[in-house]
């Protein structure tokens, strides 16, 4: 008998150990992040994570939200939708996360979004730029914190339509992001300025290292203007090749996010002067107190300047904290209701989470790379800020895509 009692005590203790993480979990708000932390996209995902960490540290230092600290778990999806989805499932089922976040890979983002819909877990997309996330595949549980290709293209078209160029050439990475951004710029440009002509297109494989053969062909086609739809590491290679081949001296170029510090930083003082670009965040502009404070904190924590992606991580952290605070409890439905239409303070100014499609409205800055007396790399100059209300697709336009 004694033996049985002893055994049952042991058993109870063991079971207690098994369940203790669950009881501990009641004290925190858990955020599960699935993103690519290896290979080429790691550069962008790490920036998102650093921005998010900064926000979480700020929030937790002030005692957290609703008396609970924010706790986060990261998983490396290796740029693979199947792995990413499995990781997201594991985070939901095993760790019991309250919110999901990620991912740079659009296919992974869409797969996790489906899971979020099924499991009723809010999912904040922090770096994929696919317009499908809040567009045709949008639903109640998914939110996009990053600017999408539809937004970027439309903002660029507003600026380009005011320029005198007529004969255009489109060149880019042969994958979804490249095609989506090019198509979006072109559709809007054609609508705003019907006399523009498309002379031709060039598409190279993702990860192409040598752009010279493509560029020399574009130069000989003599367009007035080149829309370069590249992403990731190719942005740096392409900008370099554009300068070395003399393309930039002959034909003006637009490239979304080329003015970002993540691209211009590595190129240093010898970077290509005069490329046009759009970007939702610059660490040196506008020189608002909130931006300065954020940049200072970021540099202290990571010993580098923040790229635009850090803003998305930071904004996601703010949204999570403010959302649960407004909801008053850790309740998914209340949290989602709270996020809809929520306005947060960010280094890029006040940002509104649009209630109709769950897309964060971001300002878009259009500028041109130029040398800076202050920094050892090129910065954006002649900046025109396009407020999000001027360029975002309307709620009706977005919701129409969902009905298809």
């Amino acid at each position: 008998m004694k033996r049985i009692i002893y055994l049952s005590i042991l058993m109870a203790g063991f079971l207690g150990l098994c369940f203790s993480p669950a009881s501990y979990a009641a004290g925190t708000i858990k955020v599960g992040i699935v993103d690519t932390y290896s290979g080429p996209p790691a550069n962008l995902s790490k920036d998102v994570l650093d921005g998010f960490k900064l926000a979480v540290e700020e929030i937790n230092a002030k005692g957290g939200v609703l008396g609970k600290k924010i706790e986060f778990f990261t998983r490396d999806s290796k740029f693979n939708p199947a792995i990413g989805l499995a990781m997201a499932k594991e985070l939901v089922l095993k760790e019991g996360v309250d919110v999901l976040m990620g991912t740079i890979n659009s296919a992974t983002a869409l797969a996790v979004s489906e899971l979020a819909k099924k499991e009723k877990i809010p999912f904040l997309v922090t770096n994929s730029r696919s317009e499908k996330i809040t567009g045709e595949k949008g639903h109640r549980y998914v939110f996009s914190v990053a600017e999408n290709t539809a937004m970027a293209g439309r903002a660029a078209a507003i600026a380009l339509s005011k320029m005198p160029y007529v004969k255009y050439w489109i060149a880019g990475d042969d994958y979804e992001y490249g095609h989506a951004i090019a198509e979006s710029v072109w559709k809007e440009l054609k609508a705003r300025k019907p006399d523009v002509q498309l002379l031709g297109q060039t598409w190279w494989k993702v990860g192409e290292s040598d752009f010279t053969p493509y560029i020399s062909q574009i130069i000989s086609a003599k367009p007035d203007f080149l829309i370069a739809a590249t992403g990731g590491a190719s942005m740096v290679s392409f900008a370099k090749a554009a300068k070395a081949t003399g393309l930039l001296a002959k034909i003006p170029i637009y490239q979304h996010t080329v003015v970002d510090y993540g691209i211009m930083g590595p190129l240093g003082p010898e970077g290509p002067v005069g490329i046009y670009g759009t970007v939702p965040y610059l660490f040196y502009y506008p020189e608002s107190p909130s931006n300065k404070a954020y940049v200072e904190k970021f540099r202290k924590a990571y010993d580098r300047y923040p790229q635009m992606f850090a803003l998305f991580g930071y904004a996601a952290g703010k949204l999570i904290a403010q959302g649960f605070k407004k909801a008053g409890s850790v309740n998914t439905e209340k949290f989602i209701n709270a996020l809809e239409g929520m306005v947060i303070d960010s280094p890029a100014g006040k940002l509104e989470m649009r209630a109709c499609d769950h897309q964060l409205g971001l300002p878009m800055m259009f500028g041109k790379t130029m040398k800076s007396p202050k920094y050892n790399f090129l910065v954006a100059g002649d900046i025109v800020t396009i407020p999000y209300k001027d360029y975002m697709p309307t709620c009706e336009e977005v919701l129409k895509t969902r009905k298809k």
Partner: protein
Amino acid sequence: MDFIYTIISPSLLTQIFVGLGRTVVLFIVASGLSLILGVLRIPNIWHGSLYMVGAFVTFTVANAFGGGTTGFWMAILIAPLVVALVSLVVERSFFQHLYEREHLMLLLLTFAFSLVFGDLVKMVWGTGYKSVSAPRFLEGSVDLFKGVTLTRYNLFLVLIFPIVAVALWFLVNKTKIGKISKAAAVDREMVSAVGINVSWVFATVFVIGCFLAGLGGALVAPTVSISLGMDHTLIMEAFLIVIIGGLGNMWGALLGALIFGMAQSIGILAWPQFGIVFPYAAVIVVLLFRPTGLLKSTW
């Protein structure tokens, strides 16, 4: 010069020169791969990682010497040597024990090394994109003939080609180690039977092959963004080149690189929207008619 343009347009001529520049880098990397494949019988996927490491070391060395012309030359000199040293350590500690294994095993082993090195590079250099500038005298472009503009760096690559090719030819055909390695490729046991230390011959060949990967990475560094993942793209192209040229045949690697580089640059001129398919289409055509590669395979 004008009479040439009646036969060939300036834009085609430009594409040919540009394609030659690409060919040189592809040849340097693929010849190293082919050498290792021919003599050691290792399908070395890790080769791509060494190319990447070469580019990253170039970044570090160039910056250590303050960039500019000195930094560039020091980097071109030192980076391939660093890569060679790394490969020597790995060869002596791992590969030398595994030469007798079947090819699939070696393929998996080198693939594992490429994954490990992908992560090592991330740990050492971080995730950010890196960039090295070409020295001033190689920056910008130059008018070769009327209407034919070429980047100076491209021209530099084309000029470097004969140096590398002659050095390789000399190494393989005129030096003792070259001759022994050629013999070892044919009959490993016979070579060791006549009292030659095959293990060190193999190590030397392996290191030379890897040196070429590092040299390719160093030479390409000023024209690209040095980033994680640059190994994957290249290793695929290098393998295709080696396969169409004839496994293990150095001049096959040259021919393969030439076909690949030219198909790419001329294909772009012909049909820019679908330029990427041309080099692969060329590979298919070659393999349809010469399944064992263009030149004699040593396998």
